[in-house]
């Protein structure tokens, strides 16, 4: 029954992956990585948002102390970093200031979404509870989703334009005599351009609800658009919460909606190229000193390459519990880059595409077979307890990483995952004492304390030149849906019942598809399945169309899983203006 589970260490020999003993595999990994280091070749480590805190922490320790590098990252960070940076800009920390349980008792919820019911059903359930109790839900998004339909107010927004909406809401708040607008927008001609998307009444109503509420929830996922825009959007959103008094009030706050179980944990154990455990800044000398004392070694001071860069720049790579090509925006480019590595060692429970081309493959336990912790987006640290044995010779990931650390003079000795967690408590300030707190806690784990109240920084008034992406020549907006592609995640992919939907969609559309509004389809006279040509300044691509009745005229969306099919069109951005024609 263990069909797709990795059971034995494998080494690549003559183009095939052959089973070997653990000792042989670990020895080989140590030898090859040391060879690369001796030759001065760059190496890197990727942790994962689906690895435990213990695994990520040891991966980071292995990189910094064992390999002496900050070439350290995790695939999902490419997606969520700008969101977290924006929140951090205002609050001083990217941590959530709102708990999931607070949502249900909110009186107003401001939600930027792709499709919350799809991406975060638990949060969506709380939103529904709040609405049932009379809360006003305001949704900002490009689709008429479930949340939009139960909302008091749905502000239909083109992908990437969330920033404009937040600005209008902030302006409306100012109009109500509360706070001050944080930015003003000028277009290329230097004129104030308050393009009325919805009519100021809607924004005034929303502003009124938000400012009058005792408890308001602000929910934001990674949005569309290039990095800077996402960052500014998140910062403006957080600033809106701040100027309406909802950032330091119990029951109110901002919740960055991260996907995958341990994205936040990966940040806080800092498998990140320019951070230290605790998500402290790399140049924070006190943090660095604390860690150098703890780990007994001087740490590299210069930031390393981030996850996407390091994949394409290193010669040697350690990958823990992830499949970068299916998570990173660079998609197929990541697969190509992996194929060019001199030496790649993968630790995983599942035979992912990345695992299949590893030079060394080390089988580790899944979440149901290991001890460990993970930290969800609201800062709740939960414990995993083994419910069953791992198949074959698979071992707990933390153990394997500890072994690797030992071979590189980078480990203390750990008798249990709890030992690792205790050390995390010494390395990351938020996790102080977490091990004892969890020992006494039930399934609901322990919430990380809210970080010390920092002075809020409202971004100064700025002129942001924004060129309307659309033009007469390219009147449509093509956006990449940033929602996490669960269909590629092993827990779904290898489940016969859960994967049926995704597999059949990919079978029906092996060349991907672009979602198109009914009105646009009618104009073009195309039906679902008919190929269309998309042309931007960057390039062109031809893909089948899929007609949807929940999109607005002019909006074209490509699901994240199909990004490679439109990479010529999008370039390095995730929103661009296009011309669309029948192919």
């Amino acid at each position, binding site marked *: *029954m*263990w*069909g*797709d589970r990795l059971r034995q260490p494998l080494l690549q020999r003559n183009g095939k992956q052959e089973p070997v003993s653990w000792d042989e595999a670990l020895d080989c990994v140590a030898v090859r990585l040391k060879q690369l280091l001796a030759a001065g070749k760059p190496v890197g480590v990727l942790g994962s948002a689906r690895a435990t805190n213990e695994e990520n922490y040891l991966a980071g320790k292995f990189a910094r102390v064992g390999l002496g590098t900050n070439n350290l990252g995790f695939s999902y960070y490419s997606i969520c970093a700008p969101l977290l940076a924006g929140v951090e800009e205002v609050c001083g920390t990217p941590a959530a200031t709102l708990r999931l349980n607070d949502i249900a008792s909110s009186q107003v919820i401001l939600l930027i979404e792709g499709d919350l*019911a799809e991406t975060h*059903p*638990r949060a*969506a*359930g709380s939103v*529904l*509870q709040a609405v*049932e109790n009379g809360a006003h839900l305001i949704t900002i998004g490009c689709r008429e989703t*479930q949340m939009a*339909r*139960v909302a008091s107010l749905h502000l239909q927004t083109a992908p990437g334009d969330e920033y404009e909406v937040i600005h209008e809401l902030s302006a409306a708040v100012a109009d109500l005599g509360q706070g001050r607008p944080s930015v003003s927008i000028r277009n290329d001609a230097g004129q104030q351009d308050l393009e009325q998307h919805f009519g100021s009444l809607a924004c005034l109503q929303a502003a009124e609800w938000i400012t009058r509420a005792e408890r308001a929830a602000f929910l934001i996922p990674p949005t569309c658009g290039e990095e800077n825009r996402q960052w500014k959007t998140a910062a403006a959103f957080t600033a809106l919460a701040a100027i309406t008094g909802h950032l330091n009030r119990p029951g109110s706050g901002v919740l960055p909606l991260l996907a995958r179980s341990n994205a936040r944990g990966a940040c806080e154990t800092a498998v990140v190229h320019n951070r230290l455990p605790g998500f402290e800044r790399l140049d924070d000398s006190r943090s660095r000193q604390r860690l150098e004392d703890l780990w007994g070694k001087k740490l590299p001071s210069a930031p390393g390459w981030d996850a996407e860069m390091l994949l394409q720049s290193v010669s040697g790579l350690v990958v823990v519990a992830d499949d970068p090509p299916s998570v990173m925006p660079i998609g197929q480019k990541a697969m190509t880059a992996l194929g060019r590595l001199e030496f790649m060692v993968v630790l995983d429970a599942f035979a992912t595409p990345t695992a299949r081309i590893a030079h060394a493959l080390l089988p580790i336990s899944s979440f149901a077979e290991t001890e460990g912790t993970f930290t969800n987006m609201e800062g709740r640290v939960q414990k995993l*307890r083994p419910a069953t044995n791992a198949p074959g010779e698979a071992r707990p990931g933390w153990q394997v990483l500890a072994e690797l650390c030992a071979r590189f003079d980078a480990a203390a000795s750990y008798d249990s995952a709890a030992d690792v967690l205790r050390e995390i408590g010494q390395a990351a300030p938020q996790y102080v004492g977490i091990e004892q707190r969890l020992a006494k806690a*039930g*399934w609901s784990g322990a919430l990380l304390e809210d970080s010390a109240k920092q002075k809020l920084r409202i971004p100064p008034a700025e002129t942001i030149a924004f060129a309307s992406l659309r033009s007469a020549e390219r009147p449509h907006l093509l956006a990449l849906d940033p929602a996490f592609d669960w269909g590629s995640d092993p827990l779904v992919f290898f489940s*016969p*019942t*859960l994967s*049926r*939907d995704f597999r*059949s969609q990919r079978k*029906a559309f092996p060349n991907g598809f672009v979602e198109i509004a009914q009105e646009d389809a009618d104009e073009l006279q195309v039906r679902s399945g008919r190929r269309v040509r998309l042309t931007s300044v960057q390039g062109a691509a031809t893909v089948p169309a899929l007609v949807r009745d929940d999109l607005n005229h002019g909006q074209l969306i490509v699901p994240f899983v199909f990004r490679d099919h439109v990479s010529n069109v999008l370039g390095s951005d995730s929103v661009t203006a296009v011309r669309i024609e029948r192919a």
Partner: protein
Amino acid sequence: MALAIEKKAVSGWLERLLKLGEVIAPTRTPTGDVLFSNIRSGSDVAWNLPNPLHPPKEFVLPQTDPLVQIKRNGQHHEVEAIHDGRRRFLVNARSCDVKGIAFLTRMHEMEPADASYLRRSNNLTIISLACATPCPSGFCICTDSGPFLSDSYDVQLTDLDKSYLIEVGSAKGEAAVAEAQGLFRKASEDEVSQRKRLEETAKHHFGNETCHFASAMRRISTGRVPDILWEKMSDWCLECGGCNVICPTCYCFSVKDLGRDGVWVRCRLRDSCQYAAFTLEASGHNPRPEKKDRMKRRFFHKVSAQYYTRDGAVGCVGCGRCVQVCLGATHMPAVVAAIRKGSWHE
């Protein structure tokens, strides 16, 4: 003829049963959950626990149920049915769960009878405790599955403070009692009357809420629930499938061969009719493409007259688990009420 057993003698009875097979009861885990799990000694059963969130259907219809072992052997294959004939006693189950398992058994007895299921259910004896104080989210009185049962049980206990009244309802129940004959005595008339009074009191705990099943059943069975109502309700469903996992009468499944390299196990995998691809055909056509279609299907299967006639019972035992679990509050009582009123959240 009703029997009785002193409470302090019960662990002795359970010790006898432990010699014959596995004994399963609700137990509180170190993390504070209440789960049906194996007990090791007769004194391990705690009688005052809330009903576990996961129903005991796992013991007759496991989530992943190995059915057939398949081995490739050159050009040929060897296939062998996997038999699970363990004898088990489920102790301190509630009336709703007794009815739930009886429902599942009827489904799998229907021609052609499924040996894999029946081997397990035939070897499972349920010693249930009638609910003198019904649980907060339950509505078993509306589905004729509690708080006390008059049929479908093996052994029904009623808590009479220092003793339990014992009602035996089947041959399996008789066998379980026969194992510890010396511990039982004939129940007195007082004890029998007390049991009847406890039942009446328990029924009154449900208050005067009329049961909406009848009118909902009429409308569902005659296609008189407006499509727009299903659409509105489906906006509140998150398609998590939680209802299917915890419902004692849900049994939809898929059959898959799991394994690789010439060795497979054909397994029954419990499935959810709420998932989009449940009815997806190889051609790509899906007869139930919208969530509202699937929601409508679920409630037709549970509450229609057509199924009631076929099965002899409504597909709900009023255990209230869906009320606890549903993220969107589109659980049985809410939907049934909405169908009666003809509106949702208005």
